[in-house]
């Protein structure tokens, strides 16, 4: 299989067959990981740099593990946000990375489009690990794989994505990914946390959570960015939890076998009740983490294969 570009900057624009191919490859890595075997020759001698302009433990560790399992030399660069609000630093960083002959560059940045800007300037294949409120493609892929394994399919499912959609790159990537795979996507949240004209991206929008959860096969909760509270987009955490938080009672409105997902880290008691998050019969939150490593191995594998310099 092939991806249409030498970078993975977004899910938007990826064809259904490319996504399905990535998921198939990820699934084979999942089985490999579970068997305890490794494939350390695939990226041997290649350099993977994790360039994180925003704090993240989960995603960075996941990429690190994925790279190491494929035999890459992995370097973590955390750049403190205070010193990098200037783009010249971003482009300076690109020049530095080129000089280091980096092969695979994983980038997280607080600004939408920053990985795309870097991709224009570096020789490495760039993987977007989350940019501003734009996209987080590997999160959507790992969510899709989690759903596919739990439900046996994606096509025809109803997926409800709930919470702070406006500020969520996870929601955008999932929306593009799931609609490409022919799932029905519902977005649930207060109007102040819903991006403008998001229905035109192929989603159905609900402001009443009970209505939106009705019959859903998958309930995907989003992290409420607490700093948004100060922007006055929701008046308080308790009001948010009352109307848009997921508890056992609200979950009862979804399909009887609905699964619960969360990209982490969770705000327990703000968007999700612990009783739901920790319910092994419904929550697949731990599986999401496991799928994350497998999906990232698949992405690194494909991009390394497609990179002319590495071929």
């Amino acid at each position, binding site marked *: 299989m092939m991806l249409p570009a030498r970078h993975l900057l977004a899910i*938007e624009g990826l064809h259904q067959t490319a996504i399905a191919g990535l998921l198939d490859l990820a699934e084979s890595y999942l089985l490999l990981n579970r068997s305890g075997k490794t494939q350390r020759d695939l990226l041997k001698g290649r350099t993977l740099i994790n360039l994180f302009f925003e704090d993240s433990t989960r995603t960075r560790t996941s990429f690190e593990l994925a790279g190491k399992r494929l035999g890459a030399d992995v370097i973590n660069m955390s750049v403190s946000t205070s010193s990098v*609000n*200037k*783009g*010249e630093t*971003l*482009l300076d960083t690109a020049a530095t990375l080129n000089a280091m002959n980096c092969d695979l560059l994983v980038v997280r*940045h607080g*600004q*939408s*489009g*920053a990985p*795309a*800007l870097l991709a224009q300037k570096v020789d490495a294949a760039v993987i977007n690990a989350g*940019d*501003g*409120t*734009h*996209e987080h493609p590997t999160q959507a892929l790992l969510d899709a794989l989690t759903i596919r394994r739990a439900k046996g399919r994606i096509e025809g499912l109803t997926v409800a994505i709930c919470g702070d959609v406006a500020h969520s*790159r996870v929601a*955008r990537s999932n929306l593009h990914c799931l609609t490409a795979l022919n799932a029905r996507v519902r977005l649930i949240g207060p109007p102040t946390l819903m*991006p*403008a*004209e*998001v229905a*035109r*991206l192929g989603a159905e929008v609900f402001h009443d959570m009970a209505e939106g959860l009705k019959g859903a096969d998958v309930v995907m909760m989003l992290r409420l960015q607490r700093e948004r509270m100060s922007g006055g987009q929701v008046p308080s955490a308790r009001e948010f939890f009352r109307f848009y938080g997921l508890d056992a009672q609200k979950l009862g409105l979804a399909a009887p076998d609905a699964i619960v997902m969360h990209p982490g880290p969770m705000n327990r008691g703000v968007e999700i009740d612990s009783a739901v998050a920790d319910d092994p019969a419904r929550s697949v939150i731990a599986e999401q983490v496991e799928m994350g490593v497998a999906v990232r191995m698949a992405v690194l594998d494909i991009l390394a294969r497609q990179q002319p310099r590495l071929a």
Partner: protein
Amino acid sequence: MTDLLITGARLLDPATRLDAQGGLLVRDGRIAALGPGLAGPEGIPRLDAAGLCLAPGLVDLRASLGEPGAEHRETIASAAEAAAAGGITTLCVLPDSDPPLDDPALIGFIARRGEATGSVTLLPWGAATAGCAGGEIAEYGLLREAGAIGFTDGQRAIASARTMRLALSYARAFGAMVAQHPEEPSLAAGGAATEGELATRLGLPGIPAAAESILVARDIALARLTGGHVHFAHVSTAEALELIRRAKDEGLHVTCDTAPPYFDLNETAIGEYRTYAKLSPPLRTEADRLAVVAALRDGTVDAIASDHQPRDTDDKRLPFAQAAAGGAGLSTLLAVTLARVHAGDIGLLDALALLTERPARLIGAPAGRLAPGLPADLVLFDPERAWKIEAGKLPGKAQNTPFDGRAVEGRVIATFKAGRRVF
């Protein structure tokens, strides 16, 4: 002194609706005579302009120059070079420079710096408020005496309704207009693109189109209250234009301009995070672009301004939301306007009127017309000649054109300032 006879040109004077083959005679830097079959005296320099259009030099109602304060982006000399290449002979300079033009001495300084270029008359706007900071109103009387054409805070909206009321009211005493950057600041704060589907896809903070119409509606009400003259800069939305249209019908003293990006481009130009297309106000939807075109045609818009904002690569090579807004527009003003003529949206004389006679009338400047006695500020252009706008190859220092890669038809062949060829 400068004498010149231009022959065989297509003479275009929007003020008199003249559109005829003929000649134009310059004596002592002024237009001495013009018309079909003009022979002119022997022994003076002649220019054969067969196949070319001769029009009044362009009057650009709004441009920011890097000088003073941001000479790394642009100097007055480099801006003058770009203006001459664009056929602009009169340029109205926005006051939100560093220092801002809120002192009579600075107004005089800008005007003198323009004279020193020899190619372009610089007419300064005065600051509407001290320091363009939105607080106390500036010294309109003294600034007007020094030559300020009107008052504005440039790229900054006059946010307070009370301040705007005072400004409109006080400016009446000196017969001056107050120009507003119509963008409600609390709705626009932090925004990088027009709110809507595209901004949602790109994950960019949006500015709703209503941020413009809200301030336009408020300031029309204040114009009604005060009897003052409000001018709206770079109007870009259908809703705001409709409000302005109705205010004009009502007889209020309301005028407006727009700029080429708003009738030539729509928001899709920012696709792939192209920061050169990041402007303030942001590029709008196609429906809004069409409304701007309609407003050019029906006379709602009083002038087309370059809205020139010089930026360098350090300002622009940033993630989109962090990049500076603003586009270079001096050298492309005529060509991009002519694209609407070629598309059949507006007649040639009407388009030229928006670039010459109408803005000149708005500011009371003796320019923008082909009339005997006026300084021979002229532009000679080939309306059909095709060329491609390319960032990096434009005249002048500022290269941040939102039209990068656009093919246009219509090229300035020569520009004359007081009869002297400056391009």
